[in-house]
C-alpha cells in the first residue's frame, strides 16, 4: 500500500527547486504516512539532500506545496517547521560546540516554556522537559555519556546523540540523512533497531541512505530520485525489480 493510500502525514505536491539553470527538484510529489519508514534513494546529485532542505525550510521551494498533517508549511521559517513537528539529522554530523549530551537534549526542547523559565538554571527546567530528556537519554542508551562533551565521543555515538536531539522535541516526522554512513555492521544494526522501535511508537521516518541492504531491510516504502525527478516508487521488492532503477542507480549487476 502506498503512503498516499494511508493517512498522509507529509505531503509534497509538485515541488520544484532550481539553482540557477539547474533543476535540483522537478515536480517532486510524495507522501509519508503516519507510522511508516519511507526511504529516498538515488545517485549522488539526484536531489535527495535538496529535498530535505526544502522540507525543513533551509531552502524555499520555487513551486509546489508541502503540508504536514494537513497544515501548509511551504515557505515557513525553519524554526516554525521544526516546532510544527519535523526534526532532522545531517549527512555530516552537526552537534553544538562544547555542549554535553544532556545539554543537547535540553536545548532541543525550546518551545512550550516561557522566557522567564528559560532564564533559570538548566536544572530548574520544568519537570516535563527534564523527564523527556531523561527518557530519550535512556532510549538511546546514552546514560553513560550524559555529561560528556558530545563532540568528544566516538563517531557512532555522535550519530546517536544527533538522532536523540532530533527525537527529544517529540516530532511527528523524523528526517534522517544517511544515518548509518561510516558505521560498522553492529552500529548500523543498533540504529536500525532504534528506528524500528521509534516507528512502532508511532513516529514517521523519512530517510536518505546509500546502504541498499539497510534500506531494503528497513523501509516500508521507497522513492527513487534521479536528476531531481521521481523515477520510481513502491515497496522495496518492487523498486528492486524496476528496470529504470536498475539503470539509474542499482546497476544491472545488482
Amino acid at each position, binding site marked *: 500500500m502506498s503512503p498516499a493510500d494511508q493517512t498522509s502525514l507529509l505531503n509534497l505536491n509538485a515541488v520544484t527547486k532550481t539553482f540557477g539553470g539547474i533543476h535540483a527538484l522537478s515536480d517532486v510529489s510524495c507522501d509519508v504516512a503516519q507510522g511508516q519508514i519511507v526511504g529516498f534513494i538515488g545517485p549522488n546529485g539526484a536531489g535527495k539532500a535538496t529535498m530535505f532542505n526544502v522540507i*525543513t*525550510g*533551509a531552502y524555499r521551494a520555487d513551486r509546489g506545496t508541502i503540508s504536514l498533517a494537513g497544515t501548509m508549511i511551504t515557505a515557513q*521559517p*525553519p*524554526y516554525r517547521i*521544526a*516546532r510544527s513537528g519535523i*526534526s*532532522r539529522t*545531517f549527512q555530516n554530523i*552537526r552537534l*553544538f*560546540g*562544547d*555542549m*554535553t549530551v544532556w*545539554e543537547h537534549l*535540553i*536545548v*532541543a526542547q*525550546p*518551545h512550550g*516554556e516561557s*522566557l522567564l523559565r*528559560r*532564564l*533559570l*538554571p*538548566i536544572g530548574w*527546567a520544568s519537570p516535563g522537559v527534564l523527564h523527556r530528556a531523561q527518557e530519550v537519554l535512556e532510549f538511546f542508551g546514552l546514560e553513560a555519556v550524559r*555529561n*560528556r*562533551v558530545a563532540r*568528544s565521543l566516538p563517531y557512532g555515538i555522535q550519530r546517536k546523540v544527533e538522532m536523540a*536531539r*532530533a527525537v527529544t*522535541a517529540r516530532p511527528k516526522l523524523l528526517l534522517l540523512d544517511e544515518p548509518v554512513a561510516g558505521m560498522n555492521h553492529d552500529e548500523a544494526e543498533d540504529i536500525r533497531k532504534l528506528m524500528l522501535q521509534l516507528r512502532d511508537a508511532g513516529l514517521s521516518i523519512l530517510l536518505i541512505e546509500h546502504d541498499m541492504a539497510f534500506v531494503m531491510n528497513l523501509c516500508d516504502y521507497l522513492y527513487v530520485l534521479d536528476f531531481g525527478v521521481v523515477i520510481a516508487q513502491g515497496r522495496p521488492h518492487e523498486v528492486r525489480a524496476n528496470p529504470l532503477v536498475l539503470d539509474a542507480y542499482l546497476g544491472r549487476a545488482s
Partner: protein
Amino acid sequence: MSTYYAGLFADAGILLLGALSVYIILATGQLSLGNAGLMGIGAYVTSYLTVNVGVPITAALTIAGIACGAIGVVVGFPALHLKGIYLAMATLGFGEMVRSFFLNFSPMGGAGGFHGMKHISVGYIWAWAGGLLIVVMLLERSRVWLEMQAVRDDETAAGLVGLKTTTTKVAAFGAGAAIAAISGGLFAHQFVYIEPGNFGFERSIDFVLAVILGGSTVAPGALAGAMLLVLLPEMLRFLADWRLAAFGGLLIVVLLVRRQGILDRSLFRLVTFRSSPT
C-alpha cells in the same frame, strides 16, 4: 585605598562592563567592534539626564541602559545579514558614526565635550560591574545561554531544532548595548567630563581585547582580561618608556601560549572546585 589605585579600579570596573557587552554579543557568534559607540550613547544620555534633567544617577543609568538596548536591537537587525569580518567592519562603522554625531551635536557640547556630572565612587562602579557580572554568570547557567551557544556554533542546525535564531541574535545585541551604555554612564560620572574622542575605535578594541585575553568562553574571563589590561601596564612601570612595548609583547605571548584566553570553562570549573564535562 589611594586615589591613584581607586582610579585604576574604577577603570577596570568600567572596562569589565565594556568587555561584558562584547562577550554577550560574541556568545551568539557576532563580533562587534562598535561597542564604544554604544558606550558613548550611554555616557551622553546618562549625563544629560543627571545634569540637565536632575534624574538620580541610578535611575539615569537604568534609563540609558534601556534606551541603548533598544538602539542595540535596531542595530542588531541589519547585522543579521552580515557575518564574521563584514559584521566587524559594519559595527566599526556604526561606532565611528556615533562618535562623529556627538562631535557635531552642539546641544551636548560637540567637540568641546560635556561636563557638570557629579563624581561617583569606585564602590558604586563596582556595585554595577560586579552585579552585572553575576547576572551574566547566572545567565550562563540557563537554557537561554545554551540557545545562544547553539546559534553561535551552528546557526542552521539551531534553527532546524526549533530555535528562533533571529530573536536570539538581536536580543544579544540589545543586552550587550544596554551593558555598554551603563559602562558609558559610569565612565562619564567617574571622569565628570566626556568628549566624543573618549568613545573611539581604540576603546572598542580594548573591550574585545579584554574578552579575548581573559577568555571568551566564560564571563569571568572578561574580569580577568579587564584587570590585566588595566593593571599590567602599571606593574610594568619599572620598565619606564619600554613598558607599553613590553605590555604588547606579553599580550602576544599569552595569546600564543593560550589561544582560548587565560580563563576557559575547564580552568574556571577547576578553580571553583566544580566537576568538568569531559
